[in-house]
Each structure stands twice: as structure tokens, then as C-alpha cells.
């Protein structure tokens, strides 16, 4: 049973961008929402896209306070240059005096602790926004990191926490998370406390290489994963390779989505839920996904 107390947490990831992660997240969420209450979360906070498709009505807006970063009080600073010498992130810039390049500062506070004049403060700043919204499919938590900011992992964590709260409030049985690309901090944060990772792979050599790396990542964190091949008929050779590889690893292929010209067309008109062959295949994958997810829960 999917219960509100303990909702199923699905995270859609891809390693490589542009493989159809958002398309799959949205269509799958639509499929589940036909039978269960769901909450959606967009954890691709660098380049969030799900909201474009879902056209949410924003109910609440929160500020995202990032990690504290250093700031030099020039009235106290004696230009001794110790901070400049110590900083390993090239975040202290010398330009007739010293100041902090906040995009490079990682908030380690070494300069703050070391400054003999106590001229450095660690300050919190708004580094993004989090939105709690309403969509036709259910509550939706999304966010945007201000351009050039770091620490998207922390923002991803907050989005997920809020999604959990929304799930409790609305009695949702599943949380569908559109994860971040890559294999670093944001995607690791996206995957924390996930019951099942759905890896969307594209049958290109790049797609294959990225899928292998992202599966190594889920294996590393011991998160159960399944694979969905998008545009599987684009290159049957590589698709077969993906299937063989998954078989060796004991990872199930839950869907083989055909190349469907109508998807970019529907997307450009923002016609959602999607229709057609590709959309159907995504929806059909739900039964298998649910079985596996329940077993790994």
C-alpha cells in the first residue's frame, strides 16, 4: 500500500542532460496521479524546466539562504593579506585592498577565523527562491538558484524536505522528483532518501557513457535503480548495448520509448499531458516501476 505516512519516493535522473528526464518525470507523474495523490519536485535547480510544462499556480514563495559566505569590513581591514594567502578557493581578490569574490567563496570561514583584525564576517544571503505551487497533477515544489551560485545541493535538500511536508499535508502516496544532471553534489542530494532511481538513458555513445557513470553512482550509494531508454530506435546497436549492460548488472529496463517526432512538437506548444507513442510507453512503464519500487522500499 502506498500511504501518506510513508510515500514512495521516485527520482528521475539521467547523468547526461537532454535525454528526456523532464518529459519522463512529467508523464510518469501524470500516470500515477490518475490513481493516487502525488507531489512533484523539481530538483534540477540550476536549470529547472518542469514548471514550464506544468504551468503551476504559485501559492508560496520562500527565500533560499545559502551557506554563509565571507565579507570583509574595509574599515577594519589593515590589508595584511593573510586571508588572501590562506584562501584556497581564489575567493579573495586583491585590488587596492582586499575583497571577496562571492561566486568563488565556499564558506569555509578560514579567513574569518584567521583574520587578526576580526575584519571578516560570515553572512547569510538569499541565493535562490523556492516555490510551493499547485498544479493539475498535485502539489509541486520547485526552486531556482540565482545564476552563478553554488551549493545547489543544499537547495535540493530543502526542495525535497518541503516536498515531503507537502506529501504529508496532502496525503500523497508518491513523491516524483525530477533530479539534477551529472554525478556531483546536486544529483547526490537529489538521490538521498530515494526508494527508486529511474535512469533515463539515450542510445548514443555519450548517453551510454553517462548512464554507466550514473549507475556507478547509484550503486555507490546503494540506491535501487531501473533504466528507461528514450528514443531507443535512434540507434538500435547502442540500445542493445544498454540492454546487455543492464542485464549484466541486474538492472531492469522498465521502458523503451520510441523516437516520436510529435514530442518536440507538443513540447514547443506546451501541450501537456503528452499524447502519442512515446507518452504511452512512459505511462505503460508504471506497473513495472511500481512493482520494483515496492520491493525495494
Amino acid at each position, binding site marked *: 500500500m502506498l500511504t501518506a505516512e510513508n510515500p514512495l519516493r521516485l527520482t528521475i535522473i539521467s547523468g547526461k542532460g537532454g535525454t528526456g528526464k523532464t518529459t519522463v518525470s512529467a508523464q510518469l507523474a501524470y500516470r500515477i496521479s490518475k490513481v493516487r495523490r502525488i507531489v512533484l519536485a523539481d530538483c534540477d535547480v540550476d*536549470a529547472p524546466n518542469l514548471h514550464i510544462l506544468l504551468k503551476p499556480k504559485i501559492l508560496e514563495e520562500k527565500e533560499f539562504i545559502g551557506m554563509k559566505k565571507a565579507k570583509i569590513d574595509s574599515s577594519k581591514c589593515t590589508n595584511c593579506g593573510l586571508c588572501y594567502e590562506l584562501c584556497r578557493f581564489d575567493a579573495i581578490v586583491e585590488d587596492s585592498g582586499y575583497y571577496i569574490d562571492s561566486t568563488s567563496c565556499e564558506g*569555509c570561514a578560514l579567513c574569518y577565523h584567521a583574520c587578526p583584525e576580526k575584519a571578516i564576517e560570515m553572512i547569510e544571503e538569499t541565493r535562490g527562491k523556492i516555490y510551493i505551487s499547485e498544479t493539475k497533477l498535485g502539489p509541486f515544489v520547485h526552486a531556482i538558484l540565482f545564476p*552563478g551560485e553554488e551549493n545547489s*545541493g543544499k537547495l535540493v535538500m530543502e526542495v525535497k524536505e518541503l516536498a515531503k511536508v507537502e506529501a504529508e499535508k496532502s496525503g500523497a502516496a508518491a513523491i516524483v522528483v525530477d533530479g539534477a544532471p*551529472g554525478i556531483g*553534489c546536486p544529483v547526490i542530494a537529489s538521490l538521498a532518501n530515494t526508494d527508486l532511481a529511474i535512469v533515463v538513458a539515450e542510445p548514443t555513445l*555519450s548517453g551510454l557513457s553517462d548512464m554507466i557513470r550514473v549507475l556507478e553512482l547509484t550503486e555507490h550509494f546503494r540506491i535501487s535503480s531501473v533504466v528507461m531508454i528514450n528514443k531507443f530506435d535512434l540507434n538500435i546497436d547502442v540500445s542493445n548495448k544498454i540492454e546487455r549492460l543492464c542485464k549484466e548488472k541486474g538492472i531492469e529496463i522498465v521502458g523503451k520509448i520510441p523516437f516520436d517526432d510529435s514530442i518536440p512538437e507538443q513540447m*514547443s506548444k506546451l501541450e501537456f499531458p503528452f499524447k502519442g507513442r512515446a507518452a504511452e510507453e512512459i505511462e505503460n512503464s508504471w506497473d513495472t516501476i511500481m512493482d520494483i519500487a515496492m520491493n525495494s522500499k
Partner: protein
Amino acid sequence: MKIAVASGKGGTGKTTVSANLSAVTGIKLYDFDVEEPNAKIFFKGNEKSRDVYRPVPEVKENCTLCGVCREVCQYNAIVVLKDSIMIFHEICHSCGACVYLCPEKAMDEVKRKIGEIIDVYKNGKCILTYGKMDIGEVSPVPIIKEMKKDMEKNAIIDCPPGASCPMVESVKTADFVVLVAEPTPFSFHDLKIAANVVKELKKPFGVVINKYGLPYNIEERCKKENYEIIGKIPFDRKFAEKYSKGELIKDKEMFGEIYDRILEIL
């Protein structure tokens, strides 16, 4: 001159553009997308690899368990137990605060491998340098920084996707930024985010539209935002198939024109 090829959204054709630009102009390619390096698929050759490390702390015998290291660590990477210190290297940011601030000078730094930098040679010439981050590492930035240390004067850079720290770190070093987008509402949305970052860094940039011909009118929208379109790659299943097999488009005219336009702008 260094040209960085970036895009907010992944999968829009960043690697297609950077790899083809490099192939057509003969300028060396650097793949800074160290989380998912892909350019290597298009440039086969002899590989020479070196490991990349970052420093992480270790406790020496003269530690008095005073706990200063834990207090100063902003990343929760240090725990003080009754009789020992536990350090979690994988979440350590290598800032050096614990080592510097330890009142007993009881901490040393050791090297932790975080990835590799690989040079690809063809006919004795290095045509590509790419980085590869180890699985489980959190930040690609130290590897990108290492790669930036010895770059050739002329370079084409395949940047990490997104618009946060790894992308900024990559774009910072460039003289010109090519932003690759496709005609979809998603891609245009992310293009705007990336363009804002590039503007903030005060870098000149131009847009290349991949899959040109899809119904979404991105041209009009770019015009409205005052983005100059410096190239178009038509939507063609043939290109998608080529890419899937790891083949370059290598259209001298198409990519040569993009390059010429960049030179003109600069």
C-alpha cells in the same frame, strides 16, 4: 583566444558544437564537463592520464582532542569521539581551516585522489584534454581548476551544463562564450539563465541554435533579448544518428562561419 561552449540545459548540443568547432579549426579542445566527459567519444587517440588530488586532513599523535577542528569545519566533516577524531574525507572541501587553526599543530594533510586528467594524442599532437571526476566526489571544480593551469593560448572549452559554480569556473577563463540552445521552451528558459551568468561575468557571447527547424520560434525570442545568433545547425535525424555513433558532423562551412563570426565580434 579561448572560446567556451556552454548551455544552461544539458543535451542541447554543447559537445556537438565544441567538438566540431575544434575539428574544423584545429584548435585544441578541453572537456571541462568532468562529471560526464563525452568529447573523448569523438576524438580517438592515444591517451595519457595523470591523477588529480586534493589535500585532506589527518590527525597526528599529538592531538589533544580539544575539538577546535570540528568547531571550525563548516562542512560537518569532523567528529570528536572520546579517544579519537574521525574525519570524513569525501565531504571535506579541502579548505585547510582545521589544519591551520589547530592549536596543537596536530594535523597534517594527505592527498586524496578525486579524478584524472587525460590528454589524447593523434599523430603526436595533443588534440583533446579531458577531465574525469571519480564517482562519489562532490565537486568538479578542483579538477577544472587543475585543467585551467596549463592551457594552450588558443582553446575551445566544452563546459559543464547548468549555470552554477562548475559552469562559472569554466566560463571565467574564456574570451568568448558560445551558448548552445535548441528551439524548445525548456532550452530557451535555460539559455536565458546561462546568458545572465555570462553577462554578469562580462564576457561577449553568441548563440548557436541546434536542431534548427523545430516549430518553437526561438529566433524571435533571442532577438527580443538582444542575443546574437551566430550559427544554426538544422534539425536532421542524420545528425542525431551521427552523434549517436560518435561521429562528427565536420561541416567546414557551418562551423567555419561560426568561428569567423566569433573572430569578427572580438
